[in-house]
């Protein structure tokens, strides 16, 4: 299959090359290569008419004027609005679904394998939420020092938005009953739109966390939003940090894994909610990043990764990003820029394709 990787190189250098090597101009015999040609000589062909007969062809490779990683903050803003819209939509859908959750007396919790083995621990959900907040904070700090913040931010917003959108769909179509008798669901407000609206605002302002007392609505079980945040922040932290920081990755992985486990220990979600959330988050993350990193996929005809519905959005966001984002860090204030010496892809020449 054709993979025109050459097409991705700076076009100007290839142009010079082709114009220089035409006509079988003989390279120097015992002169060393590389041969050089300068554009003006070639164009005028005057060197044959009396200018010095030294045959050398100058190939100038100009500095690539194309920025392979343009910042394009406006795209990041669009991605932010996309994510914000989806978050608000999720809150609205949650309010709607809350009305339909069957009362726990009439519809008892479903049988769940994890719940059979492990009894509920009360404080576990707080652990989850603290872990989640710590991971988000770490990611924000990492992003702050990241050189290509706009691109990483854009990707984060897009993925979060899409994951929450999927969540809206699965929450809405079928309503699972509460996973445990301990759950306190706020009373139903049949038809009282004003109060519903207030609920939506309360949920948004508290970010849906129990700690902030905004997690009062029930029905958002399939799939788990907490798992999505924990998994996604960990994936982003790992992807955009130096490969050598294994202790850092391990710590974040532990935070994430313990957080997810505590969701189950607290009997706040069914096991299937967590498993499906992990699956969808990780697959979407890997799918998106593979498409963004491998430029050959963009030109390839048999690339089924483009069959998703969000492919046009992806093209819009990543059209001008021409290489994988290197992980380089710098102080955001430019005059005091010091870059960390550790490249993320330490063995990039050997490893990356």
């Amino acid at each position, binding site marked *: *299959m054709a993979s025109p990787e050459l097409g991705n190189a700076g076009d100007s250098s290839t142009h010079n090359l082709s114009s220089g090597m035409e006509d079988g101009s003989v390279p120097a015999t015992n002169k060393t290569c590389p041969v050089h040609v300068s554009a003006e000589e070639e164009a005028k062909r005057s060197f*044959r008419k009396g200018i010095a007969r030294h045959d050398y062809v100058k190939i100038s490779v100009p500095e690539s004027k194309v920025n392979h990683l343009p910042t394009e903050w406006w795209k990041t803003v669009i991605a932010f609005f996309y994510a914000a819209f989806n978050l608000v939509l999720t809150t609205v859908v949650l309010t709607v679904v809350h009305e339909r959750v069957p009362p726990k007396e009439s519809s008892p919790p479903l049988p769940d394998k994890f719940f059979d083995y492990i009894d509920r621990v009360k404080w576990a959900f707080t652990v989850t939420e603290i872990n989640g907040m710590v991971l988000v904070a770490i990611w924000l700090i990492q992003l702050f020092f990241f050189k290509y913040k706009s691109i990483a931010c854009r990707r984060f917003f897009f993925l979060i938005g899409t994951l929450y959108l999927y969540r809206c769909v699965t929450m809405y179509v079928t309503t699972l009953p509460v996973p445990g008798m301990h759950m306190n669901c706020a009373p139903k407000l049949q038809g009282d739109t004003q109060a519903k609206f207030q609920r939506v605002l309360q949920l948004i302002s508290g970010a849906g966390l129990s700690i902030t007392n905004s997690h009062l609505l029930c029905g958002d079980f399939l799939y788990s939003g907490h798992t999505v945040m924990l998994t996604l922040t960990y994936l982003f932290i790992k992807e955009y940090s130096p490969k050598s920081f294994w202790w850092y990755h391990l710590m974040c992985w532990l935070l994430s894994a313990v957080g997810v486990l505590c969701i189950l220990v607290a009997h706040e979600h*069914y096991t*299937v909610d967590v498993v*499906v959330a992990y699956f969808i988050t990780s697959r979407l993350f890997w799918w998106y990043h593979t498409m963004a990193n*491998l430029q050959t996929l963009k030109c390839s005809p048999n690339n*089924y990764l483009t069959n998703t519905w969000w492919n046009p959005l992806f093209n819009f966001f990543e059209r001008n990003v021409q290489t994988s984002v290197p992980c380089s860090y710098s102080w955001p204030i430019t005059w005091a820029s010091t870059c960390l010496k550790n490249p993320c892809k330490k063995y990039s020449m050997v490893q990356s394709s």
Partner: protein
Amino acid sequence: MKKVEAWSAEDVSDWLNKEGMPEYIKVLHQTDGPALLSLTKADFTVPPLSRMSPDGGEQLLERIEILQMETHIEDHKNGHANGHIGGIPNGTSKLQRNGTLGRKDFETKIRIPIPTVEPPRSSFPTEWGKTGIAFIYAIICFVTTTVVISVVHERVPPKEHTPPLPDKFFDLFDRREWAFSICEINGMLLVGLWLIQWILLKHRSIIGRRFFFIVGTLYLYRCITMYITTLPVPGMHFKCSPKLLGNWEAQMRRIMKMIAGGGLSITGSHSMCGDYLYSGHTVMLTLTFLFIKEYSPRRFWYYHWFCLALSAFGIFCILLAHDHYTVDVVVAYFITTRLFWWYHTMANQQSLKETSQSNLLSRVWWYRLFQYFEENVNGTVPRNYQLPLSARAFHWNHAVKYSRLDIQ
């Protein structure tokens, strides 16, 4: 092009023009081919040539050498398969060309042995062994699924105790009794069509391997989601067979019955409840359609639309029969399509068959299995057809006739 030795003075002038050295034409207008070839550096030290040539005739002499070599190559083009040093001008040629090379040195031939080329291996080796392994994998997954369904059946809460969950589709559409039979008929039709198509494919071992692997993995995932959380029955119309608490023999028989019937209601083997998340019927309908579309010629659009209609209507009927929750169907569709596209994209791109920093698709747990199955397959499997067990390959080349246009 005729040999330089046979050139006339006119030919020499034409050649000088062509080489961009028109200034020599006047001086050499009497020179014909052999005279041109006999020019030496010494000739450029005396007038009239010394006047015309600031570099001592170096460039011209070089050009003459190249000309000699070119004609020399042409003479020997149909000769020895082993090359002799061709006069291809390049800077790294080891031939000393500092202007003093005479014709004598040029005559020495250097033998470069070229190893005989091996016959190229097929890009699409059949490797039925690997297909066999994939088949066994799929069988294991099917059997595991049946066992898990049997286990889960024991845990389904009775419908009186746990009513069906609220579902948006059920609110909008009432149940139709005949719908599930339609779904199963559609499913059987699609599987039948796919089987016929598969038999007619040339590279059936590779494609069969892919089908078994993907189906096996999907059913494996299904085992997990079914097992961990048990959804209640979606409708009061369900007749679940009674629970056999601890009676292993009866459970084994039930499992056998289900495998024998393919898990379909039509064959009476779908009497167990609890296998709702996610829907196996949706998986089969979607997957057979994806495979049919992928491995049939692009111009059969009517065939593709027919299969799409069968598939879509079948899925709709699952919901219409209130046999699965909507979320079961949605999740099944999502997982099936993503796995299919993921696998096929990886199989079609050589760059994705190696782990690397930018290839995040390789982080799935089944990547090693995938590499094992697809390591010898180079490139996209073409849609060639061949009657099975026939001595001659019956290429319906129309299938790939427009491949270059289709792809781009």
